Protein backbone atom coordinates (compact mmCIF):
# COMPACT_ATOMS: atom_id res chain seq x y z
CA UNK A 1 0.00 0.00 0.00
CA UNK A 2 2.81 2.31 0.98
CA UNK A 3 4.64 1.47 -2.23
CA UNK A 4 1.49 2.07 -4.22
CA UNK A 5 0.98 5.56 -2.89
CA UNK A 6 4.63 6.44 -3.24
CA UNK A 7 4.46 5.34 -6.85
CA UNK A 8 1.36 7.43 -7.37
CA UNK A 9 3.10 10.39 -5.79
CA UNK A 10 6.04 9.97 -8.16
CA UNK A 11 3.63 10.14 -11.08
CA UNK A 12 2.14 13.35 -9.77
CA UNK A 13 5.61 14.82 -9.30
CA UNK A 14 6.34 14.23 -12.96
CA UNK A 15 3.02 15.78 -13.91
CA UNK A 16 3.89 18.80 -11.81
CA UNK A 17 7.01 19.39 -13.92
CA UNK A 18 5.19 19.23 -17.22
CA UNK A 19 2.43 21.43 -15.81
CA UNK A 20 5.02 24.01 -14.86
CA UNK A 21 6.25 24.21 -18.42
CA UNK A 22 2.73 24.35 -19.79
CA UNK A 23 1.77 27.38 -17.74
CA UNK A 24 5.06 29.20 -18.29
CA UNK A 25 5.12 30.10 -21.98
CA UNK A 26 8.34 32.04 -21.39
CA UNK A 27 10.17 28.71 -21.19
CA UNK A 28 9.48 27.99 -24.85
CA UNK A 29 12.75 27.63 -26.69
CA UNK A 30 11.49 27.20 -30.24
CA UNK A 31 13.09 29.43 -32.81
CA UNK A 32 10.85 30.38 -35.70
CA UNK A 33 13.56 30.05 -38.26
CA UNK A 34 12.79 31.81 -41.48
CA UNK A 35 10.84 34.49 -39.62
CA UNK A 36 13.64 35.27 -37.21
CA UNK A 37 16.29 35.87 -39.83
CA UNK A 38 16.66 39.45 -38.71
CA UNK A 39 17.49 38.51 -35.13
CA UNK A 40 19.23 35.22 -35.74
CA UNK A 41 22.89 35.91 -35.12
CA UNK A 42 25.36 33.12 -35.45
CA UNK A 43 28.67 33.26 -33.66
CA UNK A 44 31.47 34.89 -35.64
CA UNK A 45 33.51 31.74 -35.68
CA UNK A 46 30.81 29.56 -37.16
CA UNK A 47 32.20 27.68 -40.10
CA UNK A 48 29.63 27.39 -42.81
CA UNK A 49 31.10 28.72 -45.99
CA UNK A 50 34.60 29.06 -47.28
CA UNK A 51 35.41 32.47 -48.68
CA UNK A 52 38.31 34.54 -49.87
CA UNK A 53 39.67 37.50 -47.99
CA UNK A 54 39.65 40.44 -50.30
CA UNK A 55 41.28 43.73 -49.50
CA UNK A 56 39.57 47.04 -50.09
CA UNK A 57 40.63 47.08 -53.72
CA UNK A 58 39.08 43.72 -54.34
CA UNK A 59 42.39 41.88 -54.58
CA UNK A 60 43.32 38.68 -52.83
CA UNK A 61 46.75 37.47 -51.82
CA UNK A 62 46.57 33.91 -53.05
CA UNK A 63 49.80 32.78 -54.63
CA UNK A 64 48.36 29.49 -55.74
CA UNK A 65 50.71 27.53 -53.51
CA UNK A 66 48.33 24.54 -53.24
CA UNK A 67 48.91 24.14 -49.50
CA UNK A 68 45.20 24.29 -48.78
CA UNK A 69 44.61 21.69 -51.43
CA UNK A 70 47.17 19.42 -49.73
CA UNK A 71 45.68 20.02 -46.33
CA UNK A 72 42.14 19.28 -47.32
CA UNK A 73 41.34 15.80 -46.03
CA UNK A 74 38.59 15.04 -48.51
CA UNK A 75 39.71 16.76 -51.65
CA UNK A 76 37.13 19.49 -51.43
CA UNK A 77 39.53 22.15 -52.68
CA UNK A 78 40.84 22.22 -56.17
CA UNK A 79 43.25 24.97 -57.02
CA UNK A 80 43.68 25.47 -60.74
CA UNK A 81 46.49 27.73 -61.76
CA UNK A 82 47.86 28.93 -65.02
CA UNK A 83 51.18 30.31 -66.14
CA UNK A 84 51.52 34.04 -65.78
CA UNK A 85 54.34 35.31 -67.92
CA UNK A 86 54.19 38.76 -66.36
CA UNK A 87 55.53 37.43 -63.08
CA UNK A 88 57.17 34.30 -64.43
CA UNK A 89 55.20 32.14 -62.05
CA UNK A 90 51.95 30.28 -61.90
CA UNK A 91 49.06 32.18 -60.58
CA UNK A 92 45.58 31.38 -59.46
CA UNK A 93 43.03 30.83 -62.13
CA UNK A 94 40.23 29.12 -60.30
CA UNK A 95 39.73 28.22 -56.71
CA UNK A 96 37.14 25.45 -56.70
CA UNK A 97 35.56 24.58 -53.39
CA UNK A 98 33.19 21.68 -53.18
CA UNK A 99 30.68 22.22 -50.42
CA UNK A 100 29.17 18.81 -51.07
CA UNK A 101 32.23 17.03 -49.72
CA UNK A 102 33.55 19.69 -47.34
CA UNK A 103 33.54 18.77 -43.66
CA UNK A 104 34.31 22.28 -42.43
CA UNK A 105 37.40 21.11 -40.61
CA UNK A 106 39.00 24.53 -41.08
CA UNK A 107 42.40 23.07 -41.96
CA UNK A 108 42.67 25.04 -45.22
CA UNK A 109 42.18 28.24 -43.29
CA UNK A 110 44.70 27.23 -40.66
CA UNK A 111 47.47 26.24 -43.03
CA UNK A 112 47.18 29.11 -45.48
CA UNK A 113 50.42 31.09 -45.18
CA UNK A 114 48.88 34.33 -46.42
CA UNK A 115 45.50 34.18 -44.64
CA UNK A 116 43.67 34.24 -47.92
CA UNK A 117 40.88 31.98 -46.80
CA UNK A 118 38.27 32.40 -44.14
CA UNK A 119 35.15 30.63 -42.98
CA UNK A 120 31.96 32.65 -43.03
CA UNK A 121 28.93 32.08 -40.81
CA UNK A 122 26.54 32.34 -43.73
CA UNK A 123 24.77 29.07 -43.49
CA UNK A 124 21.89 29.20 -45.93
CA UNK A 125 23.55 27.37 -48.77
CA UNK A 126 21.03 24.68 -49.50
CA UNK A 127 20.18 24.12 -53.14
CA UNK A 128 18.03 21.68 -55.04
CA UNK A 129 20.79 20.35 -57.21
CA UNK A 130 23.88 18.80 -55.70
CA UNK A 131 25.96 20.02 -58.58
CA UNK A 132 25.33 23.55 -57.51
CA UNK A 133 27.34 22.91 -54.38
CA UNK A 134 30.57 23.43 -56.26
CA UNK A 135 31.80 26.95 -55.75
CA UNK A 136 34.33 28.96 -57.60
CA UNK A 137 35.66 31.27 -54.95
CA UNK A 138 37.71 33.63 -57.06
CA UNK A 139 35.42 36.41 -58.05
CA UNK A 140 38.19 37.94 -60.04
CA UNK A 141 40.87 36.10 -61.88
CA UNK A 142 43.96 37.99 -62.68
CA UNK A 143 47.23 38.98 -61.15
CA UNK A 144 47.44 38.90 -57.39
CA UNK A 145 46.99 42.09 -55.53
CA UNK A 146 50.59 42.86 -54.54
CA UNK A 147 51.78 42.37 -58.08
CA UNK A 148 49.20 44.72 -59.40
CA UNK A 149 49.87 47.32 -56.78
CA UNK A 150 53.46 47.48 -57.88
CA UNK A 151 52.33 48.64 -61.31
CA UNK A 152 51.71 52.35 -61.08
CA UNK A 153 50.70 52.66 -64.69
CA UNK A 154 47.03 52.04 -65.17
CA UNK A 155 47.51 50.89 -68.71
CA UNK A 156 50.04 48.27 -67.74
CA UNK A 157 47.91 47.25 -64.83
CA UNK A 158 44.96 46.68 -67.07
CA UNK A 159 47.09 44.46 -69.22
CA UNK A 160 47.84 42.27 -66.22
CA UNK A 161 44.19 41.96 -65.54
CA UNK A 162 42.20 39.57 -67.57
CA UNK A 163 38.68 40.49 -66.77
CA UNK A 164 36.32 37.58 -66.40
CA UNK A 165 32.65 37.56 -66.02
CA UNK A 166 31.99 38.44 -62.43
CA UNK A 167 31.23 35.35 -60.44
CA UNK A 168 28.16 35.66 -58.29
CA UNK A 169 27.34 32.33 -56.85
CA UNK A 170 28.03 28.67 -57.04
CA UNK A 171 28.72 27.00 -60.33
CA UNK A 172 27.79 23.55 -61.41
CA UNK A 173 30.40 20.86 -61.44
CA UNK A 174 29.35 18.39 -64.07
CA UNK A 175 30.72 20.71 -66.40
CA UNK A 176 33.42 22.72 -64.94
CA UNK A 177 32.66 24.82 -67.99
CA UNK A 178 30.01 26.59 -66.02
CA UNK A 179 32.75 27.79 -63.73
CA UNK A 180 34.50 29.20 -66.72
CA UNK A 181 37.09 26.46 -66.96
CA UNK A 182 38.08 25.72 -70.53
CA UNK A 183 37.60 22.13 -71.68
CA UNK A 184 40.69 19.98 -71.59
CA UNK A 185 42.15 21.65 -68.54
CA UNK A 186 40.55 19.10 -66.35
CA UNK A 187 38.87 15.81 -67.17
CA UNK A 188 35.60 15.80 -65.33
CA UNK A 189 34.81 12.78 -63.22
CA UNK A 190 32.01 10.47 -64.06
CA UNK A 191 28.80 10.68 -62.13
CA UNK A 192 29.85 7.98 -59.67
CA UNK A 193 32.86 9.95 -58.62
CA UNK A 194 35.22 7.36 -59.96
CA UNK A 195 38.07 8.84 -61.95
CA UNK A 196 38.13 7.71 -65.52
Amino acid at each position, binding site marked *: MHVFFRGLLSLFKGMKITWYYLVHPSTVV*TQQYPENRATLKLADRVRAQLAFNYDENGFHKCTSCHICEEACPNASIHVIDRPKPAIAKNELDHFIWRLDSCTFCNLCVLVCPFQVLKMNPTFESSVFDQRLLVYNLTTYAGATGPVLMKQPDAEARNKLIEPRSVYDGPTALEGYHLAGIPPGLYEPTSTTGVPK
Partner: protein
Amino acid sequence: MSSGSNSLIQGVSLSQWVGGNAWTDTPWLAFAAVLGGTALTIGFMSLTAMVLVYAERKIAAHFQCRLGPMRVGWHGILQSIADSLKLFFKEDIVPTNTDHLLHALAPALCVMATLLALITIPLSPSISIANMNIGVLFLSAVSGLGVLGILLGGWSSNNKWSLLGAMRAGAQIISYEISMTLSILVVVLFAGSMKFSTIIESQATGWWIWRVPVVGFVAFFIFLISSTAEINRTPFDLAEGESELTAGFHTEYSGLRFAMFFLAEYINLFIASSLGAILFLGGWMPFHIGHFSTFNHLMDLIPPGIWFAMKVCGLIFLSMWIRWTFPRLRVDQLMRLEWKILLPIGLVNLAIAACLILSEYYFFVWNPL
Protein backbone atom coordinates in the same frame (compact mmCIF):
# COMPACT_ATOMS: atom_id res chain seq x y z
CA MET B 1 -27.92 2.70 -38.48
CA SER B 2 -30.56 3.24 -35.87
CA SER B 3 -33.68 2.88 -37.94
CA GLY B 4 -33.99 -0.88 -37.67
CA SER B 5 -34.79 -1.88 -34.15
CA ASN B 6 -37.31 0.54 -32.80
CA SER B 7 -38.06 -1.68 -29.88
CA LEU B 8 -34.53 -1.24 -28.64
CA ILE B 9 -34.16 2.41 -29.32
CA GLN B 10 -36.63 4.68 -27.75
CA GLY B 11 -37.04 8.38 -27.77
CA VAL B 12 -34.77 9.23 -30.64
CA SER B 13 -34.50 12.92 -30.17
CA LEU B 14 -33.55 13.42 -33.77
CA SER B 15 -37.10 12.51 -34.72
CA GLN B 16 -38.34 15.25 -32.51
CA TRP B 17 -36.41 17.78 -34.53
CA VAL B 18 -37.95 16.53 -37.70
CA GLY B 19 -41.30 16.82 -36.03
CA GLY B 20 -44.21 14.68 -35.04
CA ASN B 21 -44.35 11.00 -35.73
CA ALA B 22 -41.90 11.20 -38.56
CA TRP B 23 -40.86 7.62 -38.10
CA THR B 24 -44.23 6.18 -38.86
CA ASP B 25 -45.88 8.78 -41.06
CA THR B 26 -43.36 9.55 -43.75
CA PRO B 27 -40.75 6.91 -44.40
CA TRP B 28 -38.73 9.14 -46.71
CA LEU B 29 -38.52 11.74 -43.99
CA ALA B 30 -37.31 9.11 -41.60
CA PHE B 31 -34.77 8.03 -44.14
CA ALA B 32 -33.68 11.61 -44.60
CA ALA B 33 -33.40 11.97 -40.85
CA VAL B 34 -31.17 8.93 -40.61
CA LEU B 35 -29.05 10.18 -43.46
CA GLY B 36 -28.87 13.60 -41.91
CA GLY B 37 -27.99 12.11 -38.57
CA THR B 38 -25.23 10.10 -40.09
CA ALA B 39 -23.88 13.07 -41.95
CA LEU B 40 -24.07 15.19 -38.84
CA THR B 41 -22.27 12.55 -36.80
CA ILE B 42 -19.55 12.15 -39.37
CA GLY B 43 -19.17 15.89 -39.66
CA PHE B 44 -19.07 16.28 -35.94
CA MET B 45 -16.60 13.44 -35.72
CA SER B 46 -14.20 14.92 -38.26
CA LEU B 47 -14.44 18.33 -36.70
CA THR B 48 -13.84 16.97 -33.21
CA ALA B 49 -10.89 14.93 -34.38
CA MET B 50 -9.37 17.95 -36.10
CA VAL B 51 -9.79 20.11 -33.05
CA LEU B 52 -8.42 17.37 -30.82
CA VAL B 53 -5.39 16.82 -33.02
CA TYR B 54 -4.65 20.51 -33.02
CA ALA B 55 -5.20 20.73 -29.28
CA GLU B 56 -3.00 17.74 -28.63
CA ARG B 57 -0.21 19.13 -30.75
CA LYS B 58 -0.37 22.52 -29.11
CA ILE B 59 -0.64 21.21 -25.59
CA ALA B 60 2.10 18.67 -26.11
CA ALA B 61 4.29 21.39 -27.56
CA HIS B 62 3.86 23.61 -24.56
CA PHE B 63 4.48 20.72 -22.19
CA GLN B 64 7.76 20.33 -23.98
CA CYS B 65 8.81 23.99 -24.23
CA ARG B 66 7.90 24.13 -27.89
CA LEU B 67 5.40 26.16 -29.85
CA GLY B 68 3.82 23.44 -31.93
CA PRO B 69 2.23 24.24 -35.27
CA MET B 70 2.63 27.93 -36.04
CA ARG B 71 2.61 28.24 -39.79
CA VAL B 72 -0.85 27.54 -41.18
CA GLY B 73 -3.20 30.25 -40.05
CA TRP B 74 -2.98 32.17 -36.81
CA HIS B 75 -0.87 30.06 -34.44
CA GLY B 76 -1.30 27.17 -36.80
CA ILE B 77 -5.02 26.94 -36.23
CA LEU B 78 -5.62 25.58 -39.72
CA GLN B 79 -2.88 23.00 -39.41
CA SER B 80 -5.34 20.13 -38.97
CA ILE B 81 -7.15 21.09 -42.15
CA ALA B 82 -3.90 21.23 -44.04
CA ASP B 83 -2.91 17.86 -42.63
CA SER B 84 -6.19 16.21 -43.50
CA LEU B 85 -6.00 17.62 -47.01
CA LYS B 86 -2.51 16.22 -47.28
CA LEU B 87 -3.69 12.83 -46.07
CA PHE B 88 -6.55 12.89 -48.58
CA PHE B 89 -4.25 13.44 -51.49
CA LYS B 90 -1.48 11.14 -50.41
CA GLU B 91 -0.85 7.97 -52.29
CA ASP B 92 -2.48 4.99 -50.69
CA ILE B 93 0.34 2.50 -50.50
CA VAL B 94 -0.67 -1.10 -50.11
CA PRO B 95 2.26 -3.47 -49.67
CA THR B 96 2.42 -6.48 -51.93
CA ASN B 97 1.51 -9.86 -50.46
CA THR B 98 -1.09 -8.36 -48.18
CA ASP B 99 -4.67 -9.39 -47.87
CA HIS B 100 -5.99 -6.46 -49.84
CA LEU B 101 -9.62 -6.79 -48.85
CA LEU B 102 -8.93 -6.98 -45.13
CA HIS B 103 -6.25 -4.35 -45.42
CA ALA B 104 -8.83 -1.98 -46.86
CA LEU B 105 -11.55 -3.11 -44.48
CA ALA B 106 -9.64 -2.68 -41.23
CA PRO B 107 -9.60 1.12 -40.97
CA ALA B 108 -13.23 1.28 -42.04
CA LEU B 109 -14.13 -1.14 -39.27
CA CYS B 110 -12.29 0.99 -36.77
CA VAL B 111 -14.08 4.12 -37.84
CA MET B 112 -17.43 2.35 -37.93
CA ALA B 113 -17.06 1.16 -34.37
CA THR B 114 -16.27 4.63 -33.15
CA LEU B 115 -19.11 6.09 -35.18
CA LEU B 116 -21.58 3.67 -33.62
CA ALA B 117 -20.26 4.45 -30.19
CA LEU B 118 -20.41 8.16 -30.79
CA ILE B 119 -24.11 8.28 -31.60
CA THR B 120 -25.06 7.20 -28.10
CA ILE B 121 -23.29 10.08 -26.42
CA PRO B 122 -25.71 12.83 -25.40
CA LEU B 123 -24.04 16.19 -25.66
CA SER B 124 -26.69 18.14 -23.80
CA PRO B 125 -30.32 17.54 -22.77
CA SER B 126 -31.47 18.55 -26.24
CA ILE B 127 -28.67 17.26 -28.43
CA SER B 128 -28.33 13.53 -28.81
CA ILE B 129 -28.54 11.34 -31.84
CA ALA B 130 -29.75 8.13 -30.23
CA ASN B 131 -30.63 8.23 -26.58
CA MET B 132 -31.23 4.54 -26.02
CA ASN B 133 -32.35 2.89 -22.87
CA ILE B 134 -29.47 0.45 -23.20
CA GLY B 135 -26.95 3.16 -23.93
CA VAL B 136 -24.21 1.90 -21.65
CA LEU B 137 -24.52 -1.66 -22.85
CA PHE B 138 -24.61 -0.62 -26.48
CA LEU B 139 -21.58 1.59 -26.08
CA SER B 140 -19.45 -1.02 -24.39
CA ALA B 141 -20.51 -3.63 -26.94
CA VAL B 142 -19.83 -1.46 -29.94
CA SER B 143 -16.57 0.03 -28.75
CA GLY B 144 -15.24 -3.49 -28.42
CA LEU B 145 -15.62 -3.83 -32.17
CA GLY B 146 -12.82 -1.37 -32.74
CA VAL B 147 -10.25 -3.92 -31.71
CA LEU B 148 -11.32 -6.05 -34.65
CA GLY B 149 -10.19 -3.33 -37.00
CA ILE B 150 -6.86 -3.09 -35.26
CA LEU B 151 -6.36 -6.85 -35.31
CA LEU B 152 -7.31 -7.08 -38.96
CA GLY B 153 -5.10 -4.16 -39.86
CA GLY B 154 -2.14 -5.67 -38.10
CA TRP B 155 -2.69 -9.09 -39.51
CA SER B 156 -3.43 -8.12 -43.09
CA SER B 157 -0.38 -5.87 -43.33
CA ASN B 158 1.82 -8.95 -43.54
CA ASN B 159 4.39 -7.26 -41.35
CA LYS B 160 5.66 -8.79 -38.15
CA TRP B 161 5.84 -5.49 -36.34
CA SER B 162 2.24 -4.78 -37.29
CA LEU B 163 1.19 -8.20 -36.16
CA LEU B 164 2.95 -7.76 -32.84
CA GLY B 165 1.24 -4.43 -32.39
CA ALA B 166 -2.13 -5.87 -33.27
CA MET B 167 -1.69 -8.78 -30.89
CA ARG B 168 -0.69 -6.43 -28.13
CA ALA B 169 -3.70 -4.26 -28.86
CA GLY B 170 -6.01 -7.26 -28.89
CA ALA B 171 -4.79 -8.59 -25.57
CA GLN B 172 -4.78 -5.16 -24.02
CA ILE B 173 -8.18 -3.97 -25.15
CA ILE B 174 -9.95 -7.20 -24.32
CA SER B 175 -8.39 -7.29 -20.86
CA TYR B 176 -9.06 -3.71 -19.98
CA GLU B 177 -12.62 -3.95 -21.26
CA ILE B 178 -13.37 -5.99 -18.14
CA SER B 179 -12.16 -3.40 -15.70
CA MET B 180 -13.85 -0.65 -17.60
CA THR B 181 -17.15 -2.46 -17.60
CA LEU B 182 -16.82 -3.20 -13.90
CA SER B 183 -16.33 0.45 -13.11
CA ILE B 184 -19.20 1.43 -15.38
CA LEU B 185 -21.42 -1.14 -13.65
CA VAL B 186 -20.90 0.60 -10.35
CA VAL B 187 -22.51 3.72 -11.74
CA VAL B 188 -25.22 1.71 -13.44
CA LEU B 189 -26.04 0.17 -10.08
CA PHE B 190 -26.22 3.53 -8.42
CA ALA B 191 -28.30 5.13 -11.10
CA GLY B 192 -30.45 2.10 -11.67
CA SER B 193 -30.49 2.67 -15.38
CA MET B 194 -28.44 2.15 -18.48
CA LYS B 195 -29.85 5.14 -20.23
CA PHE B 196 -27.36 7.94 -20.39
CA SER B 197 -29.88 10.69 -19.81
CA THR B 198 -31.22 8.94 -16.73
CA ILE B 199 -27.72 8.42 -15.40
CA ILE B 200 -27.02 12.09 -15.81
CA GLU B 201 -30.31 13.14 -14.24
CA SER B 202 -29.61 10.90 -11.26
CA GLN B 203 -26.60 13.09 -10.57
CA ALA B 204 -28.59 16.30 -10.22
CA THR B 205 -27.97 16.28 -6.51
CA GLY B 206 -24.34 15.28 -6.65
CA TRP B 207 -21.90 13.61 -8.98
CA TRP B 208 -21.24 9.93 -8.54
CA ILE B 209 -17.55 10.46 -8.10
CA TRP B 210 -18.11 11.90 -4.65
CA ARG B 211 -21.69 11.08 -3.79
CA VAL B 212 -20.44 7.72 -2.58
CA PRO B 213 -17.21 8.79 -1.02
CA VAL B 214 -14.72 6.02 -1.71
CA VAL B 215 -16.51 3.68 -4.06
CA GLY B 216 -17.25 6.30 -6.64
CA PHE B 217 -13.74 7.62 -6.68
CA VAL B 218 -12.18 4.17 -6.95
CA ALA B 219 -14.51 3.38 -9.82
CA PHE B 220 -13.56 6.62 -11.51
CA PHE B 221 -9.87 5.91 -11.04
CA ILE B 222 -10.21 2.45 -12.54
CA PHE B 223 -12.26 3.87 -15.35
CA LEU B 224 -9.61 6.47 -16.05
CA ILE B 225 -6.82 3.90 -16.24
CA SER B 226 -8.73 1.32 -18.23
CA SER B 227 -10.17 3.83 -20.66
CA THR B 228 -6.67 5.17 -21.30
CA ALA B 229 -5.64 1.62 -22.03
CA GLU B 230 -8.73 1.06 -24.18
CA ILE B 231 -7.87 3.93 -26.45
CA ASN B 232 -4.19 3.01 -26.69
CA ARG B 233 -2.67 6.11 -25.23
CA THR B 234 0.56 6.47 -23.30
CA PRO B 235 1.40 4.95 -20.84
CA PHE B 236 -0.54 2.11 -22.47
CA ASP B 237 0.26 2.80 -26.11
CA LEU B 238 1.91 -0.56 -26.60
CA ALA B 239 0.00 -1.25 -29.76
CA GLU B 240 1.75 1.63 -31.48
CA GLY B 241 4.82 1.99 -29.27
CA GLU B 242 6.89 3.76 -31.85
CA SER B 243 10.19 3.09 -30.15
CA GLU B 244 9.52 -0.65 -30.10
CA LEU B 245 7.25 -1.47 -33.03
CA THR B 246 7.96 1.50 -35.32
CA ALA B 247 4.24 2.26 -35.55
CA GLY B 248 2.53 -0.94 -34.53
CA PHE B 249 -0.60 -1.98 -36.30
CA HIS B 250 -0.71 0.96 -38.70
CA THR B 251 2.89 0.69 -39.89
CA GLU B 252 1.82 -0.24 -43.38
CA TYR B 253 -0.98 2.27 -43.76
CA SER B 254 -0.74 5.55 -45.51
CA GLY B 255 -2.92 8.28 -46.87
CA LEU B 256 -6.62 8.12 -46.21
CA ARG B 257 -6.55 4.73 -44.53
CA PHE B 258 -4.02 5.95 -42.02
CA ALA B 259 -6.18 9.01 -41.53
CA MET B 260 -9.09 6.75 -40.64
CA PHE B 261 -7.09 5.03 -37.91
CA PHE B 262 -5.99 8.42 -36.71
CA LEU B 263 -9.57 9.68 -36.71
CA ALA B 264 -10.75 6.65 -34.80
CA GLU B 265 -8.05 7.16 -32.21
CA TYR B 266 -9.03 10.72 -31.45
CA ILE B 267 -12.75 10.05 -31.52
CA ASN B 268 -12.13 7.23 -29.08
CA LEU B 269 -10.42 9.74 -26.86
CA PHE B 270 -13.48 11.94 -27.09
CA ILE B 271 -15.84 9.06 -26.39
CA ALA B 272 -13.87 7.84 -23.41
CA SER B 273 -13.69 11.31 -21.95
CA SER B 274 -17.37 12.01 -22.45
CA LEU B 275 -18.22 8.64 -20.97
CA GLY B 276 -16.18 9.57 -17.92
CA ALA B 277 -17.92 12.91 -17.76
CA ILE B 278 -21.36 11.35 -18.08
CA LEU B 279 -20.89 8.52 -15.64
CA PHE B 280 -18.87 10.14 -12.92
CA LEU B 281 -18.86 13.88 -13.37
CA GLY B 282 -22.54 14.44 -13.85
CA GLY B 283 -22.71 14.99 -17.57
CA TRP B 284 -24.26 18.37 -18.18
CA MET B 285 -25.20 18.86 -14.54
CA PRO B 286 -23.70 22.03 -13.09
CA PHE B 287 -21.29 22.05 -10.20
CA HIS B 288 -23.03 22.68 -6.89
CA ILE B 289 -21.64 23.06 -3.43
CA GLY B 290 -23.94 22.25 -0.53
CA HIS B 291 -26.03 25.19 0.56
CA PHE B 292 -24.18 27.99 -1.16
CA SER B 293 -27.30 28.88 -3.07
CA THR B 294 -25.83 32.01 -4.68
CA PHE B 295 -22.94 30.03 -6.03
CA ASN B 296 -25.26 27.26 -7.17
CA HIS B 297 -27.52 29.71 -8.97
CA LEU B 298 -24.53 31.23 -10.66
CA MET B 299 -23.47 27.79 -11.79
CA ASP B 300 -26.94 27.12 -13.12
CA LEU B 301 -26.62 30.08 -15.44
CA ILE B 302 -24.04 28.25 -17.51
CA PRO B 303 -25.88 26.23 -20.16
CA PRO B 304 -25.69 22.44 -19.81
CA GLY B 305 -23.94 21.97 -23.13
CA ILE B 306 -21.08 24.15 -21.94
CA TRP B 307 -20.88 22.19 -18.69
CA PHE B 308 -20.59 18.98 -20.57
CA ALA B 309 -17.98 20.38 -22.92
CA MET B 310 -15.97 21.70 -20.00
CA LYS B 311 -15.94 18.35 -18.27
CA VAL B 312 -15.01 16.51 -21.44
CA CYS B 313 -12.25 19.00 -22.18
CA GLY B 314 -10.95 18.60 -18.66
CA LEU B 315 -10.75 14.85 -19.02
CA ILE B 316 -9.18 15.10 -22.45
CA PHE B 317 -6.60 17.49 -21.09
CA LEU B 318 -5.88 15.08 -18.25
CA SER B 319 -5.37 12.33 -20.77
CA MET B 320 -2.98 14.48 -22.78
CA TRP B 321 -1.16 15.55 -19.66
CA ILE B 322 -0.63 11.92 -18.73
CA ARG B 323 0.42 11.03 -22.23
CA TRP B 324 3.11 13.67 -22.42
CA THR B 325 4.54 12.94 -19.02
CA PHE B 326 4.79 9.20 -18.57
CA PRO B 327 6.84 6.48 -20.18
CA ARG B 328 5.28 3.34 -21.53
CA LEU B 329 4.65 0.16 -19.59
CA ARG B 330 5.92 -3.18 -20.72
CA VAL B 331 3.46 -5.69 -22.09
CA ASP B 332 3.62 -8.10 -19.15
CA GLN B 333 3.41 -5.25 -16.66
CA LEU B 334 0.36 -4.02 -18.50
CA MET B 335 -1.32 -7.38 -18.11
CA ARG B 336 -0.28 -7.67 -14.50
CA LEU B 337 -1.74 -4.26 -13.77
CA GLU B 338 -5.05 -5.37 -15.23
CA TRP B 339 -5.45 -8.90 -13.98
CA LYS B 340 -3.72 -8.67 -10.63
CA ILE B 341 -4.50 -5.15 -9.51
CA LEU B 342 -7.33 -3.45 -11.35
CA LEU B 343 -9.60 -6.46 -11.76
CA PRO B 344 -9.65 -7.49 -8.07
CA ILE B 345 -10.06 -3.91 -6.96
CA GLY B 346 -12.84 -3.42 -9.46
CA LEU B 347 -14.63 -6.57 -8.36
CA VAL B 348 -14.40 -5.69 -4.69
CA ASN B 349 -15.50 -2.19 -5.49
CA LEU B 350 -18.52 -3.48 -7.35
CA ALA B 351 -19.40 -5.81 -4.49
CA ILE B 352 -19.16 -2.99 -1.99
CA ALA B 353 -21.33 -0.82 -4.19
CA ALA B 354 -23.94 -3.57 -4.41
CA CYS B 355 -23.87 -4.07 -0.63
CA LEU B 356 -24.27 -0.35 -0.08
CA ILE B 357 -27.33 -0.32 -2.25
CA LEU B 358 -28.83 -3.48 -0.73
CA SER B 359 -28.33 -2.31 2.83
CA GLU B 360 -30.04 0.88 1.81
CA TYR B 361 -27.34 2.69 3.59
CA TYR B 362 -27.79 5.19 0.94
CA PHE B 363 -25.29 7.64 0.01
CA PHE B 364 -23.59 10.31 1.81
CA VAL B 365 -25.57 12.97 0.07
CA TRP B 366 -23.48 15.97 -0.60
CA ASN B 367 -26.25 18.54 -0.97
CA PRO B 368 -29.65 17.48 0.26
CA LEU B 369 -31.93 19.93 -1.45
